[in-house]
């Protein structure tokens, strides 16, 4: 028997980097199993690649974009009936106001990422707090919290967005708050539901019988075991948030002028140019769709990886 075989039988030594483990390996954590399944899922890889490109473009926008977000380098080349198309100087051509389309798409990625992440964070934190309170205390606290959540769910999202923008004004902040608030009840319900399901598990009973306090059991055992679905939901929510952000700015809730480098706003401006320059609508629209696709693919693969039973 060679050394390697012995090593295998004993499991990886602590000094060595762990080998990729098969899903049947005993003792591997749920997250490790999930990572293993994710690596073997082409949809997950594609989704992750899209998300990665999107994030990198957003982060390095100042380096990547040939022009600034508000610059109008081709201002003098625009005619009422003619908008210059792709050229060596402007790779995707100009828009109605003389802005460089490629630069605006790149800066737009930054705007979308910011709104998407911030709003989902808002929904995640707010919803998880509500769900945690309801799931941890139960009883009347649970009832009151969940009725509140039901009420929030019964208000259509666009409506909430419009109301918020009406009160705090048309701005990117309004868009973030509007999208985030809509997500709160979704996260609250989800976390509460999974926590309730976990509370009935044997390991909780075991922990309680070992004399651990209710608080310790809830915070160190029930909660960590309940976050999986919440993380999946957050990934999927990022897709929705990117689309919603574009939709709300398309409607003008995000404020800003028609020259703002934001995908939804760019579509608003492109509306009138459909016959002259359809690419002004096609590019930002494709960016929104592909980004949303990336988050959706990755989120669904993550869901399957964490809970193979849901595989469809």
């Amino acid at each position, binding site marked *: 028997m060679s050394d390697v075989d012995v090593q295998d039988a004993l499991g990886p030594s602590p000094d060595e980097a762990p080998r990729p483990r098969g899903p049947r390996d005993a003792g591997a954590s749920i997250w490790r199993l999930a990572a293993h399944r994710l690596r073997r899922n082409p949809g997950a890889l594609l989704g992750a690649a899209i998300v990665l490109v999107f994030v990198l473009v957003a982060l390095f926008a100042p380096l990547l974009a040939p022009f600034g977000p508000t610059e109008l380098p081709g201002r003098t080349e625009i005619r009422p009936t003619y908008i210059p198309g792709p050229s060596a100087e402007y790779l995707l051509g100009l828009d109605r106001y003389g802005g460089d389309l490629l630069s605006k798409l790149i800066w737009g990625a930054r705007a979308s990422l910011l709104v998407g992440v911030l709003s989902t964070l808002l929904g995640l934190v707010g919803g998880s707090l509500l769900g945690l309170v309801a799931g941890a205390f139960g009883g009347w606290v649970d009832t009151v919290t969940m009725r509140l959540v039901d*009420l929030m769910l019964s208000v259509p999202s666009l409506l909430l967005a419009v109301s918020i923008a009406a009160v705090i004004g048309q701005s990117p902040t309004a868009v973030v708050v509007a999208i985030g608030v809509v997500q709160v009840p979704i996260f609250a319900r989800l976390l509460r539901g999974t926590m309730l399901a976990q509370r009935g598990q044997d390991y909780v009973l075991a922990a309680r019988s070992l004399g651990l306090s209710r608080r310790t059991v809830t915070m160190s055992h029930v909660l960590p075991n309940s976050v999986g679905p919440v993380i999946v939901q957050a990934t999927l929510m990022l897709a929705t948030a990117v689309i919603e952000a574009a*939709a709300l700015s398309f409607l003008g809730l995000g404020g800003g002028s028609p020259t703002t480098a934001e995908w939804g706003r760019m579509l608003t401006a492109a*509306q009138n140019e459909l016959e002259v320059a359809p690419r002004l609508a096609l590019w930002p629209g494709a960016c929104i769709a592909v980004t949303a696709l990336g988050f959706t693919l990755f989120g669904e693969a993550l869901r399957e990886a964490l809970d193979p039973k849901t595989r469809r």
Partner: protein
Amino acid sequence: MARLVLQRLALLVPTLVGLSILLFLWVRALPGGPATALLGERATPEAVERINQLYGFDKPLVEQYLTWVGQLLQGNFGTSTRTGVPVLEEFALRFPATIELTVLALVIAVGVGIPLGYVAARHQGRLLDHTTVVVSLLGVTVPVFFLAFLLKWLFAVQLGIFPSAGRQTPSMIATHPTGFYVLDGLVTREWDAAWDALAHLVLPALALGSIPLAIIARITRASVIEVQNADYVRTARAKGLGRPRLRRRVVLRNAMLPVSTTIGLQVGLLLSGAVLTETVFAFNGIGSFLAAAVFNLDYAVLQGFILFIAVVYALANLAVDVSYGLIDPRMRVR
């Protein structure tokens, strides 16, 4: 069944009361105070005074709330600051357009989505199934207003098959007894007008129906797959139930429960989507009116729309609950 409907209608009351309180607080929180919000920036002091008296905005809060609700119940929603026309009148004018659009979109979504999901499930794991999964994934991730753009550009601008904007060709001479243009054409036997109105509906309805279609197809597929592998289906097969009968009575019927929930949830989505599609197609419905109201912060219109959409939403959920009873006999007992 009647009892269920009544029970649900009764539950609608607390929801609406809760919503009206929120809405009341919202109107009060608006910049410039409620009277200015309902009348616009350039309101004369007399007009502000009149509104304050009408809605009792100078009285104690509870009394204010009750007067305000009373006015709403009488259909007094204020006047659009943009058009100067009472909100209710504007709604009566535009409501039929949006209903026509959303109904056609829903018909497309359900009519295509359920068969698509069902066929995909029957061919699980094969090419047709994979195609359906990919198409429905795209349907969910392509924003509705972008799809509207694509359809408009391809079928209206490039190919010229369908009209690109509006509800009816402006030169069309047509009478409108109901405001539902397609229906009007049929009732008055102006066939060309009905056809023209329908042609104007096709592209917006396709765009609007795309997301619900994708979602319905996905849910149907997942649900049918789950049901067709269930023990009771095998039992029914073993007992000699023929395939067509099995599929219709056992598989499809059991698979429809989650699907009907989903369809109900889509109604809210459709109304939000209508705002976007109507804007792209310059379709003169409530949606494009609301979009304009958002731009101009036309609070009276927004307030009316919020109440309207909430009622529609609640009624849609009611319809879903009733459909449960129709699909699943067990639900009727409770």
